[in-house]
């Protein structure tokens, strides 16, 4: 299974993270997203006319929407990451998968504006990003009150992975995460999952890493 990938893309990171958590092996095909704009060239437009990444190619199956890709990986290797049979849980997974598209637009848009100097109304993007973070925070507070630590259940699902990267990288777009205690705890829970992988700007919990030691230099 081949992933057209860009290391700094939060949407591609969703796929790498899901694959790592579920033990799926990906063949990575780096895309020169910036400055090359390779994703808008003829070769990649042939795979994804929308001109975005990630793209997954598996035999004759081509997937260009990260939420669909997460479902594909989970369904193959780790169905416990999908919704169970409860109607509420199934609906919540879909609710947050759809919501994740809004995060790509607002927090992702703010980040592209700040990091790659893309045009856009930064004030509006940040305001929409804050509104989305408040919605996520309220959703997580309610889940905690139901005794569930993640967005759709008391276990992580594809919905959590779909929402996590753009939220964790919100500060790159000038949007602070300080005001959201429930998001902070949720992010910690995700970052401490077995098999979690990092991307630039999103780190594993440092306290779970071994204490660094340096040999005193001998003069």
């Amino acid at each position, binding site marked *: 299974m081949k992933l057209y990938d860009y290391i700094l893309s939060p949407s591609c990171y969703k796929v790498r993270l899901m694959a790592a958590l579920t033990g799926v092996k990906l063949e990575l095909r780096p895309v020169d997203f910036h400055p090359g704009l390779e994703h808008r060239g003829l070769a990649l437009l042939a795979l994804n006319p929308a001109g975005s990444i990630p793209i997954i190619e598996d035999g004759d199956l081509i997937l260009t929407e990260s939420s669909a890709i997460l479902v594909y990986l989970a369904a193959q290797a780790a169905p416990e990451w999908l919704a169970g049979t409860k109607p509420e849980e199934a609906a919540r997974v879909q609710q947050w998968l759809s919501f994740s598209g809004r995060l790509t637009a607002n927090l992702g848009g703010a980040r592209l504006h700040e990091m790659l100097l893309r045009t856009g109304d930064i004030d509006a993007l940040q305001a929409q990003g804050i509104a989305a973070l*408040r919605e996520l*925070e*309220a959703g997580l*507070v*309610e889940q905690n*009150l*139901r*005794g569930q630590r993640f967005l759709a259940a008391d276990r992580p699902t594809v919905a959590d992975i779909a929402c996590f990267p753009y939220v964790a990288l919100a500060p790159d777009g000038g949007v602070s995460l*300080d*005001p959201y*205690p*429930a998001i*902070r*705890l949720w992010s*910690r829970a995700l970052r401490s999952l077995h098999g979690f992988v990092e991307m630039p700007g999103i780190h594993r*919990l*440092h*306290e779970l890493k071994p*204490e*660094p*030691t*340096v040999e*005193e230099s001998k003069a």
Partner: protein
Amino acid sequence: MHTLTTGPWTPVALSADLPVGTVIPARIPAGSIALWRSESGRLSASADRCPHRGMSLSHGFVRGENLSCIYHGWSYARSGKCVRIPAHPGLEPPEAIRAKTFAVEEAGGVIWVATDEAATTPPVLEGLMPLRSMTTSAGIAAIEAAAGAKATAEGLVVPAENADTLCLLLSARDDGQTLIHVLLKGETTADSRIAASRVAESLRRAAEDLQKKGIAA
């Protein structure tokens, strides 16, 4: 201008939002702080500035009984004293390397930090159970207007329409934002707590509307 008289004490966070072995950013009138809880559960508050190169200590991490800076790993004890410099493992860090610390108290599920060395204790909130904290870009006057009720000297507002169930503990910040701790009265169920959280969201929205329109100014 509203002066809330909680003395030197600021309600900075809810206990439940700071599990053992974690650090979070918070604010008091003296500035930004790193609020952390050690593995054994002891609370500390220090200025959010590493004495080494000024990195935010709230970006750091807790290991055992110490707070480590994310940048070069200098570690600080509860007292603020630097106890470890990873690049010089054999060196006992000099006494002079200290992060500034503040008094911190925890009562009824709320964490309070004092601006100066406080001899007093924070206000006691009888019969209130913390639900969640939220930040709003509305000031105290706008929140009072939205709630249809005045704040007490401790910063407690009992919203007129939810007087039997809800109480807001307000803390004005120097950046014009207000930290709201949503507290619940009496017996509650999971359903009533979820309902209360939604009421608080609506109150915040109403307060920010009023703030924008300048009605509360």
